[in-house]
């Protein structure tokens, strides 16, 4: 059992709380660096997807988990990033420049959404982003001179300064670098005044405002960062798949992204990556389970949807803090070994505040 003694205020914002954290994350980093030499191509590709979805999830986590604004059209931002990257790379831009442009373009689109969304709350915001997602998807399908329409678009391998990253290992390294940078950036943001303002807006807009937080600016910033990360993730996604079409960025994908962060654990950076791992490994597990299941069930195209739905319902009902919350509980159980109590993580039941006039 470990006792943390706080001896300075700097300790409160330190990224690693104690030496154990440093050791754990160093081990994780070493394992991730060693992956291209250890894993086969297939495993490496899955790991690359986990990193890409993790980057997208980080943005959505900032928006939904930390700022409390939920977006039902997040795949649209991913799509904007992916298409920007595809078009610019095919036009011969070097990778870092195209990636930055994809992120900035997606962020600009995010700001455009945020401006009308500032007046909206809760479900109205959700529906505005949903509507926006549909419009972007249709736009991608119809703007054929740039996007290639429903026939899709081929994307070249990333290249920078005369060096083409066309092997699985080098592209994995690139994704790892982007994911680590995004994660550190988010962690840094969250311990800064801006990040604290996000959390304050989530917890109570009225009290945040009375503490001097500019609501409109904070929410717009959250939308911009979230969509920039989605755009960067989309750019990597475009390079990974080498082929993009508008139906990869539809409402189902948006819902998958939300499902990912809810299952991972809303309001935790770990949750974005745990959710990404869930989203990538679940289809494999289902495919593995198909051999044992009866024919009619195994061949049904909706099997994956059914499993996702059941898992989602299970998490919302029994573990609202997601996989990361469950992990915290398990870890605390071991740390405190005989002294863990059932109610340790129970919060006071928070009753939903009505948006109606009383």
């Amino acid at each position, binding site marked *: 059992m470990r006792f943390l003694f706080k001896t300075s205020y700097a300790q409160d914002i330190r990224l690693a709380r104690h030496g154990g954290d440093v050791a754990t994350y160093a081990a994780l980093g070493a394992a991730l660096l060693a992956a291209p030499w250890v894993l086969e191509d297939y495993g490496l590709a899955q790991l690359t997807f986990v990193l890409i979805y993790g980057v997208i999830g980080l943005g959505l986590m900032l928006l*939904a988990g930390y700022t409390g604004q*939920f977006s039902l059209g997040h795949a649209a931002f991913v799509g904007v990033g992916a298409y920007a990257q595809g078009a610019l790379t095919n036009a011969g831009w070097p990778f870092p420049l195209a990636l930055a442009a994809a992120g900035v373009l997606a962020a600009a689109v995010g700001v455009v959404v945020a401006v*009308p969304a500032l*007046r*909206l709350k*809760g*479900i*109205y915001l*959700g*529906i*505005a982003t*949903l*509507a*926006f997602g*549909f*419009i972007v998807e*249709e736009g991608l*399908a*119809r703007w054929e001179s740039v996007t290639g329409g429903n026939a899709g678009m081929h994307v070249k391998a990333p290249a920078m300064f005369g060096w083409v990253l066309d092997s699985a290992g080098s592209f994995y390294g690139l994704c790892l670098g982007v994911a680590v940078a995004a994660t550190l950036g988010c962690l840094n943001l969250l311990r800064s005044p801006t990040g604290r303002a996000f959390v304050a807006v989530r917890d109570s807009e*009225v009290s945040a405002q009375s503490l001097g937080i500019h609501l409109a600016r904070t929410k717009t910033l959250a939308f911009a960062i979230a969509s920039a990360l989605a755009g960067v993730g989309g750019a990597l996604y475009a390079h990974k798949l080498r082929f993009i079409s508008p139906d990869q960025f539809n*409402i189902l994908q948006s*819902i998958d992204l*939300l*499902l990912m962060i*809810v299952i991972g654990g*809303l309001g935790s950076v770990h949750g974005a990556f745990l959710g990404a791992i869930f989203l990538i490994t679940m289809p494999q597990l289902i495919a593995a389970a198909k051999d044992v299941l009866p024919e*009619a*069930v195994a061949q*049904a*195209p*909706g*099997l*994956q*949807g*059914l*499993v*996702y*739905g*059941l*898992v*989602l*319902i299970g998490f*919302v*009902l029994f573990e*609202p803090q997601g996989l990361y919350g469950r992990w915290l509980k398990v870890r605390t159980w071991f740390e405190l070994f005989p002294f863990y109590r059932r109610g340790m993580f129970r919060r006071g*039941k*928070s*009753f*939903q505040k*009505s*948006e*109606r*006039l*009383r």
Partner: protein
Amino acid sequence: MNGALLQILLSGVAAGCIYGLIALGFVLIYKATETVSFAQGELMMLGAFAALALMTVLGFPYWLAVPSAIGAMALLGLAVERVVIRPILGQPAFSIVMLTIGIGYVARGAVTMIPGIGTDTHALPVPYKDEVRRLGALVLNVEQLVVIVVTAALSAALYALFRYTRIGVAMQAASQNQFAAYCMGIPVRRLNGLVWALAAAVAALAGLLLAPITFVHANMGFIGLKAFPAAVVGGFGSLPGAIVGGLVIGVVESLAGFYLLEGFKDIAAYLVVLLMLMLRPNGLFGESLRKKV
């Protein structure tokens, strides 16, 4: 006005009635429990499949299959509320939205599991299939007429329910202020169950009306995503608003399909809702809200 325009308006109104009926389900649930159900489209799909199963597998006649399907869906709505919604009432709205999305996934997945039925597209054998009435130059499709007439009748019935019956008044009270209703001795929790049952029944009816027009298949519930704009345009908390919003969306959509470029028909509903949210965030009939500290 020429005949073609009238024809387009008529089909728009018929489509709008379907959107309105699904939106009615959203609004009922939202008013009663302040939760938004993303599973409404899937409930509609289940209703259509229930009727299909009753008619083709059990051999029920149409006039028996319709009330039994609606009744079965009402029971399902009651069960869903009791089993999954009630335990998490009071949690943030986001959790409940995700929960209903999960219910939608499960419903869609479960339907595809039914061997031989779930993965195919079916035509619901209704007695008025493909009948046409002529009125001057106008060709009236009976399927569309049935949709319009039934929607009007259902709206009248719901109006009467909320205006004249004890249970309807109690539902109104519970939706305006749950706590005060509770203090007045109204069984709020049981009413919430009934509201879910009512919403599921309305959704099943919408599915039955839609089935002859578009066929029955596992993904027909996605039309529910167009009912959200309908509910928002009408004002999310207003029952007449849901129907009016549905009509607006339906008519705009069919006009856009005729006059504008290809592609605008699919996104017309969303453009309308974005415009509405910018100009009047509370919708046509929504009450104006201002949060007080």
